[in-house]
């Protein structure tokens, strides 16, 4: 197959074939993803400890949905995205994209994955090459995948239009000649240049001021409709995640603690950490403002995380069982779509607040 024909195939995929296929199975399945970073030290610079940044994360992303990932700083949200893009090599874990296992036999290569999945980074400035006109930055990806220069530029200009920047005015500019919001639009255009089906948005709007953030969020929603995209939206901003996501996944210290439909998680949070996280949102009503912090202390170090449930050191309901047994991620509400990893929600776990064995929660 020629290079151009391959691009053609990618161009067609999001409309017809992909959607019909994806209703049957998730677009992305992640199983037991793990990444430990060595801590070097000592005389010979040997690895003396490991930062357990992402420790056995599993989730699915359905085609056409927006999965929000929330959690404190350092909980492994960004690492997860970088692992899935193979910008970092996972220590362990299985990634299945549209039924094809990454690196498996008859599966998908990293390069193929990168054509189908793209990423938008938080720092709009650092993620653009300061020496390249933005048009060339956008055209780089398609050229890598074999599109001739002229066509790649044509596509870049079309994408500039799509993200609301006039190609004639902005195409030849350098990143320092653009505002933060404009730069983030360029980053989005660059991510879309390969016509991906899945886009990881790693704190993509967090560095923007509120009015620009709203513009970019609306742009993302429009683009999703237009190009049939699936988003994994990583953010620490609970309001933004609530607004844009269909499902939300809560991470704590490299583990998934709760996942479910956004309405269900926000209205009936099951894990004490999710509850604390949600109640940490400032109230818009001055009469209802909170004076007590919902969570005290810093998260424990991921080098030596607590045994059992990782949240138990800050949890008001922690019991003996929590230190002994790691709670599994179990479904309970919404026909099992809402899952949490807490002994209190697991019938017969031995926690005093859990339902007795054999009864449904």
């Amino acid at each position, binding site marked *: 197959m020629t290079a151009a024909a391959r691009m053609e195939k990618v161009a067609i995929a999001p409309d017809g074939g992909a959607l019909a296929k994806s209703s049957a199975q998730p677009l992305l399945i992640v199983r037991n993803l793990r990444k430990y970073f060595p801590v070097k030290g000592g005389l010979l610079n040997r690895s003396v400890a490991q930062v357990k940044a992402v420790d056995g994360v599993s989730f699915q992303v359905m085609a056409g949905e927006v999965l929000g990932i929330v959690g404190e700083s350092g909980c492994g949200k960004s690492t997860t995205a*970088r692992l899935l*893009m193979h*910008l970092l090599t996972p220590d362990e874990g299985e990634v299945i994209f549209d039924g094809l296992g990454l690196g498996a036999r008859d599966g998908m290569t*990293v*390069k*193929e994955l*990168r*054509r189908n999945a*793209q*990423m938008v*980074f*938080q*720092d709009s400035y*650092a*993620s*653009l*090459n*300061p*020496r*390249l*006109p933005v048009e060339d*930055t956008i055209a*780089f*990806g398609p050229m*890598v*995948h074999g599109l001739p220069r002229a066509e790649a530029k044509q596509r870049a200009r079309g994408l500039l*239009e799509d*993200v*609301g920047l*006039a190609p*004639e*005015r*902005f*195409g*030849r*500019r*350098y*990143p*320092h*000649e653009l505002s933060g919001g404009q730069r983030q639009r360029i*980053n989005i255009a*660059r991510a879309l*240049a*390969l016509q991906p089906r899945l886009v990881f948005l790693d704190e993509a709007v967090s560095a923007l001021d509120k*009015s620009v*953030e*709203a*513009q970019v*969020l*609306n*742009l993302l*929603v*429009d683009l999703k409709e237009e190009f049939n995209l699936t988003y994994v939206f990583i953010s620490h901003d609970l*309001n*933004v995640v*609530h*607004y844009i996501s269909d499902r939300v996944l809560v991470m704590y210290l490299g583990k998934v603690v709760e996942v479910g439909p956004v309405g269900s998680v*926000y209205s009936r949070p099951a894990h004490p950490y999710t509850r604390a996280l949600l109640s940490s949102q400032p109230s*818009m009503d001055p009469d209802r403002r909170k004076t007590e912090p919902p969570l005290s202390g810093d998260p424990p170090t991921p080098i030596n995380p607590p045994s059992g449930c990782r949240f138990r050191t800050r949890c008001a309901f922690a019991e003996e069982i929590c230190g002994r047994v790691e709670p599994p991620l179990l479904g309970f509400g919404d026909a099992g779509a809402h899952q949490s990893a807490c002994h209190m929600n697991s019938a017969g776990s031995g926690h005093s607040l859990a339902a007795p064995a054999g009864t449904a929660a």
Partner: protein
Amino acid sequence: MTQVNAVRRPANPLDETRDRTPAPPAAAKESAVVVYKGQSYWSNVGRRLRSDPTTVVCGLIVLAIILVSVFAPLIAPMDPYQAKMLGRLAPIGTAGHPLGTDELGRDMLSRLIYGGRISLMMGLTPVGVALAVGGLLGVVAGYAGGWVNMMIMRFMDVFYAFPSIMLAIAISGALGAGIGNGMLALTLVLIPSITRVTESVTTQVRAYDFVDAARATGASTTRVIVTHVLSNVLGPIFIFATSLVSVSIIIASGLSFLGLGVSPPEADWGLMLSTLRQAIYINPMLCALPGIMIFVTSLCFNLMSDGLRSAMDVRL
């Protein structure tokens, strides 16, 4: 969730992207929109360089020296090797010898012009070769990191441990005198410092998200380096290399002075300085001439490097 819904106001006046009015016909658009040409980074640098008088003057001097050296046979008034035993050490301003004659009665002006050829070659060639070799090693070390970096940089540190002039003398002493060996010695001396500078700049650039974004497109490592890393690394290394030209000229002169570089009767500023030093009590001004040429040339390269640095060092 009123606050959340407030984010998505359909008629947000700030939000220009929301109203997707159909684009006007291409012809009308063409005339209405001012096409933005873009101030390229390099055209900006060029503009800043031109507005800096020191750099312009130094550049012109260097250019003049280079041109005179290249066209030496056409410009030199006399044969630089033609000795005249009767007219030795003629003072500056002697008829027929505007800059006098040396200890063998050879015309100083012609010898300085021819000497510039060798001195400039000994200044520029080692820097050029070291830039290619050291730059490549540095980019590889900086981009790859890990044990590759360790191997390359520790190897360079071994050379770095010696004072550069001592190392140059040792290498060319071991290889034997001659222009070729001298240049080889200079190249080997310059490689470690260029490698080190390149490595540190590359390591910085490597950490930026745009390199990860480029990798995330599925581009090969070579392609990422060529398109995204080199464009950000070359500038600083080029500045550094310019400043090394003067170092190279001075070390080359030193080698010639010690008899390790050029051999007589070849003219070279360093060698001329060496042979004329016996006449320093007889005609000090004459003896100073090759030294002045070395001084002016290396000063100009240094000042040009400074000008280039300030023109390129823009917080974008």
